[in-house]
C-alpha cells in the first residue's frame, strides 16, 4: 500500500508498458523534454530515449494520423492531445482512419493506439480548454473509450488501453491529476468495459464516470443523512459500457440518475438513460434523471463556471426527484 497521485499512476502505467514492450512509443506536444503540460509523461524520455519518446510540432492532425500509420505497422503509439478541445483538429485520423481500418480492411489487422485526451473544467480555463467531448467518440464504431476516476483505475485502464489491440480514447479529467489515494503496490490492469460499484446502496442508482464520481459520492453522503442509500456506479469505460452492471443495479434500486460533467444534451448519459428506458423499463419506478452541464460553452469567470459545473446539490436533487 502506498499513496499515489492520479498523474503518477498514469505515468507509472506508461513506464511499465514501455519497459515491458519495446513497441510502445509515446509522442505529442511537449511531452518528452518537458514531461508534458500536466507531467503525465515525466521521466519517460530519460528512461526510454528519444527514439521512443518524442516531442512533436503543433500538428494535431498529423500527430494522430502518424499514430495510425505507426499502429498499422508494428508500433503501439500512445499520443497526447494537450487538451481534449484540440482533438477537433484530429478527428479524421481518429474517426475515419483508426476507428474504421480494422473493419474496412476486413479484419486484416488491428490499430493498437491510445489517444490521451485531458478533459474537464473547474480551473477557469475557458470555453476552448475545458470541454468534455467523449460522447463524440462513444458514437463511433471501432473506438473504445475509457475514463478513469480513481487512481487505481488510472493505472489499470492505461495499461489496458495500451494492451488493447484496437484504438482506445483515454479520457483523463484534469481536475483529478492531483488526486491522491492509497493503492496496492502491484496495481492490475482493469478490463475495459467493466463498471465498478463505488458505493453500494439500495434506494437509487447513480451512474457516473470521471470527476463526477466524486460529486455523486458527495451527493450519496448527503442523501445517506436523509436515510436514502444510493448506489454509485463508476462506469470507467464508456465504450463499451457495462450495461449489465447498470441493469443489475437498477433492478435492485428501481431508480436511476446519470451524472457527468459533460453537457447533458446528447451526452454520454443520454445513451445510458435511453438504454435503460428500453431494456430496464420494467424495473423503473421513477423517471430517469440526468445531471450534466447546461447547454452552453464552458464559461471563464469563476462565478459562471461555478454555476455551470454539475454539483452534489444538483445530483442529490435528481435522486430526490426520481424518488418523489
Amino acid at each position, binding site marked *: 500500500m502506498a499513496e499515489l497521485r492520479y498523474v503518477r499512476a498514469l505515468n507509472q502505467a506508461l513506464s511499465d508498458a514501455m519497459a515491458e514492450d519495446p*513497441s510502445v*512509443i509515446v509522442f505529442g506536444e511537449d511531452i518528452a523534454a518537458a514531461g508534458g503540460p500536466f507531467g503525465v509523461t515525466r521521466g519517460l524520455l530519460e528512461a526510454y530515449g528519444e*527514439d*521512443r519518446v*518524442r516531442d*512533436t*510540432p503543433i*500538428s494535431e*492532425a*498529423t500527430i*494522430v*494520423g*502518424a*499514430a*495510425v*500509420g*505507426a*499502429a*498499422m*505497422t*508494428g*508500433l503501439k*503509439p500512445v499520443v497526447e492531445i494537450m487538451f481534449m478541445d484540440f482533438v477537433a483538429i484530429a478527428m*479524421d*485520423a481518429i474517426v*475515419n*482512419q483508426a476507428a474504421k*481500418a*480494422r*473493419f*474496412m*480492411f*476486413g*479484419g*486484416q*489487422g*488491428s490499430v493498437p493506439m491510445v489517444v490521451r485526451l485531458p478533459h474537464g473544467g473547474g480551473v477557469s480555463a475557458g470555453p476552448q480548454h475545458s470541454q468534455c467531448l467523449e460522447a463524440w467518440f462513444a458514437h463511433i*464504431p*471501432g473506438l*473504445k473509450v475509457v475514463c478513469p476516476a480513481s487512481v487505481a483505475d488510472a493505472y489499470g485502464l492505461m495499461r489496458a488501453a495500451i494492451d488493447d*489491440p*484496437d484504438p482506445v480514447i483515454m479520457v483523463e479529467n484534469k481536475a483529478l491529476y492531483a488526486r491522491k489515494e492509497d493503492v496496492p503496490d502491484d496495481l492490475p490492469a482493469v478490463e475495459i468495459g467493466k463498471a465498478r460499484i463505488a458505493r453500494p446502496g439500495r434506494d437509487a442508482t447513480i451512474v457516473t464516470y470521471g470527476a463526477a464520481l466524486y460529486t455523486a459520492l458527495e451527493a450519496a453522503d448527503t442523501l445517506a443523512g436523509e436515510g436514502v442509500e444510493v448506489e454509485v456506479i463508476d462506469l470507467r469505460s464508456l465504450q463499451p459500457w457495462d450495461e449489465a452492471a447498470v441493469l443489475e443495479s437498477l433492478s435492485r434500486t428501481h431508480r436511476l440518475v446519470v451524472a457527468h460533467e459533460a453537457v447533458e444534451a446528447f451526452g454520454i448519459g443520454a445513451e445510458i438513460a435511453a438504454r435503460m428506458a428500453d431494456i430496464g423499463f420494467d424495473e423503473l419506478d421513477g423517471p430517469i434523471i440526468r445531471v450534466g452541464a447546461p447547454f452552453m460553452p464552458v464559461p471563464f469567470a469563476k462565478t459562471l463556471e461555478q454555476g455551470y459545473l454539475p454539483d452534489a446539490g444538483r445530483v442529490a436533487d435528481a435522486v430526490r426527484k426520481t424518488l418523489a
Partner: protein
Amino acid sequence: MPSSSAISPSKARPGARKGSNTPEALLALYRQMLLIRRTEERLSQLFADGEVPGFIHLSIGQEAIAAGLGSVLERKDTIASTHRGHGHALAKGVDLNGFFQEVMGRETGVCKGRGGSMHVADMSAGMLGANGIVGAGMPIAVGSALAHQVRKTGGVGVVFFGDGALAEGVLHESLNLSALWKLPVLFVCENNGWSEFSPTSKQFVAPLGKLADAFGIPAETIDGNDVEIVADTAGRLVSEIRKGGGPRVLECITQRVRGHYEGDAQKYRDPAELKDRDKIDPLPRAASRLSVLGVSDAVLAALETEIMAEIDAATEAARAAPLPEFVAAQADVYTPAGV
C-alpha cells in the same frame, strides 16, 4: 498549376528518357502497367453493367507511376494510397483475385467486401489502404515510416497523393514532421492536372518542388508517363531514403484519361485536352521503347493474351465468389479477445 506547366510531359528530362532498364526489366514494368490498364478497363465495363457497386476512380493514363514505384519497393515497404488507388495496390503486390473480389463486394475479397474500391488494403503486402479522405494517407505513411525507423526494418514508407491533395494542410504538417525526424518516407504526387471537376491550377498556387525545398526536402518533378523515368528516379530516391537520407518528394506529371469517377460526363472538360493522348500514354511509349530494345511484337501480343486470361479468370472467380453476410461482418469491428 505551376508545377505542371514547368514541365511538358512528352519532352520531360529528355536525357533521362533512355532508362537504365534492361529489356527484361522494362518488360516487367510494361507488364505491370498493362495489368493495371486492362484491369481498370474491365472494371469500367463491369461498373457500367452494374457489377461493381459504389463509385470507382480509374487511374487509366497514370499507370507508369504505380508500376515504376512498385518496381523499386520491397514487400516490407509500406504504401498509403488514394481514392484512385487500384494501380498502387496491384503494383505493390495485392493479389489480382482478391482485388477483383473486393471491388465487386465479395466475402473472399482482400477486405472481405467491407471496403471496396476506395479501401483496398493488404497489410501483408505493405499496402496500408486506398483512402476515401483526400490527403489522409500522408500522415499514415509518415507514421509507417516512423515505425520503420524505430523498428529499424530498413523499410520505406510511400504516400501517393493527387495534385488536388496539395491543398490539404496535412501535406504541410507531414513534410515538416518527416523532415524534422528524417523519416524514411517518399511523397509521390500524381499530378494529373485535375481535382475532381476543377483544374488544380484554379485551386493551388504553390509548385510542390518549391514547397519541399522550403522544408529542405529534395524534390524532383518528372514525366510521370514514362515508366522508365519513374522507375529510375524512384529507385534512386528510395535508395537514398533507405540509406537514411530522410524524406524525398517525387512529383510525377501525368494525366487523368477518364472522368473523376466512372459515370462522370465531364461536361467541364475540353475533349481536346486528351487529343494527343497516344503520344503521352505510358503504354504505347513503353511499347515503342521495348521494340527499340529488341522485344518483338509477338512477345507483347503474348503478354496481352496472358494478362487478359488472368483478368478473365479473376472476373469469373469474383462473380462466382460468395457475397458477404451481415452477421459475420459485425465481428470485424473489433479485434476478438485473445488475438
